[in-house]
């Protein structure tokens, strides 16, 4: 007889969303290729739909590109930091193997992607109601409203994903202090890599004055933090 945990069950996503620690802790401790595939599928579909809604305002082709890029950032961030995150956990007091740290992070991204996917019809409806993207639209309230709506939804989805991750880490480590240390360390390295990946894979919302493209021609020129630094310099130079 097949063990229940080996069955591919989409209802497991609602268990993750509810944060039912008993089954989630058991899942994180035992590798299941099918569950891994389910979580990756939710990330691809959920973040993909959200990406499509985000890029749609500029052009349907941009929607397609962002539908590919959005899940890609999540998956590349998880893969790129897998080793580092697995090393940081025991150093900060949580003795879990690489497989379990990967699984925990993937589950938190699954929660985030499921929330993003659920919001994608709402964002698509908002974009459908917006005036076409034009230079005038970018300088008006519509652009700022759409941008802020995306920030709010992504921030909410990310917060919920990390809240569930924190609960799991606290359960695995038996201490909220340890869980907090590990979560902040993982967040720091994931944000560091994720920001740069987002920079390379820009544009997302797009611009009416620039062509629709998967990568900008300057994708690999400079980096996110360099750009932030230059922006700060320009601001301070205005006060001189």
């Amino acid at each position, binding site marked *: 007889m097949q063990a229940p945990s080996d069955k591919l069950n989409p209802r497991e996503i*609602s268990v993750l*969303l*509810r*944060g039912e620690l008993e089954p989630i802790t058991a899942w994180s401790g035992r590798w299941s290729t099918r569950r891994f595939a389910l979580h990756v599928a939710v990330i691809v579909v959920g973040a993909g739909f959200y990406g499509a809604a985000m890029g749609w305002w500029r052009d349907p082709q941009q929607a397609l590109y962002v539908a590919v890029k959005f899940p890609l950032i999540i998956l590349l961030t998880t893969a790129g930091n897998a080793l580092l995150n697995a090393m940081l956990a025991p150093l900060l007091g949580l003795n879990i193997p690489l497989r379990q740290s990967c699984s925990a992070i993937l589950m938190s991204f699954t929660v985030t992607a*499921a*929330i993003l*996917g*659920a*919001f*994608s*019809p*709402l964002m698509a*409806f*908002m974009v*459908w*109601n*917006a*005036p*076409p993207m034009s230079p005038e639209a970018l300088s008006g309230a*519509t652009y700022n*409203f759409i941008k802020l709506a995306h920030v709010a939804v992504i921030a909410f989805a990310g917060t*919920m994903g990390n809240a569930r991750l924190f609960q799991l880490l606290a359960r695995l480590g038996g201490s909220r202090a340890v869980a907090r240390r590990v979560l902040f360390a993982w967040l720091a390295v994931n944000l560091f890599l994720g920001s740069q990946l987002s920079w390379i894979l820009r544009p997302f919302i797009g611009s009416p004055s620039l062509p629709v493209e998967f990568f900008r021609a300057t994708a690999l020129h400079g980096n996110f933090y360099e750009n932030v630094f230059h922006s700060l310099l320009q601001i301070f130079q205005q006060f001189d």
Partner: protein
Amino acid sequence: MPASGPRQLGDDPSECVAIPNVIVAIEAILRQPRRVMFQLRQPGAGQLIVSMLFVSVVCSLIYGVVAGTFSGGTQLWAAPVKIAAGLMISALICLPSLYIFTCLGGSQARLVEVFGLLAGLLMLMTILLIGFAPVAWIFSQSTESLAWMGTLHLIFWFIATCFGLRFLETGFSHSNARSLAGFRTWVVIFLLVALQMTTALRPILGKSETFLPAEKKFFVAHWGDCLKGQGWDSKSESR
């Protein structure tokens, strides 16, 4: 010792009686909403959900005809189509986020139950709109002001929606939810989507040469334009 908290669904034997047709469904949602909630958890709830959606579509079509009598002509068929389609699309757009919010709140409700409760909201709302229809018709025939009629319909819609949302909230309170904060956030989203739908599908009351508007607007901007005098006095403006 008496149990604390809300009574369990199905405690009353009358709640366990199946709902065989749309007439019973209408009566049950008005008089015994807990019976509807209980039946939505039973196997074969799909038939009840289809019945509730059917009633919602029929009632919104009827209310739409009444709304369309304000301008007459093509609005007699355009208004019902837009109101029925707008309600259904709003519900469909908001369903995924409703399910996610209920899960995040710890609710054990399955997707089909959430869908059923949403269908119940639509049915209760549209039945109440039918109740308001004669009043709306009287005003439609006696006033020329588009803004006044628009406001009146919005008030009726708001009252009907409040009762529908109360049904939905009661349904979720029986699904072991730890918190209703997410649900209340969703209520705001649903209201915003439904209000925006009135602008996206305009004109619903007034006349226009095209079925859908050529210009995209957010509802706040559109209402602002209406209140500035563009749509107060004429049936030919789009609202």
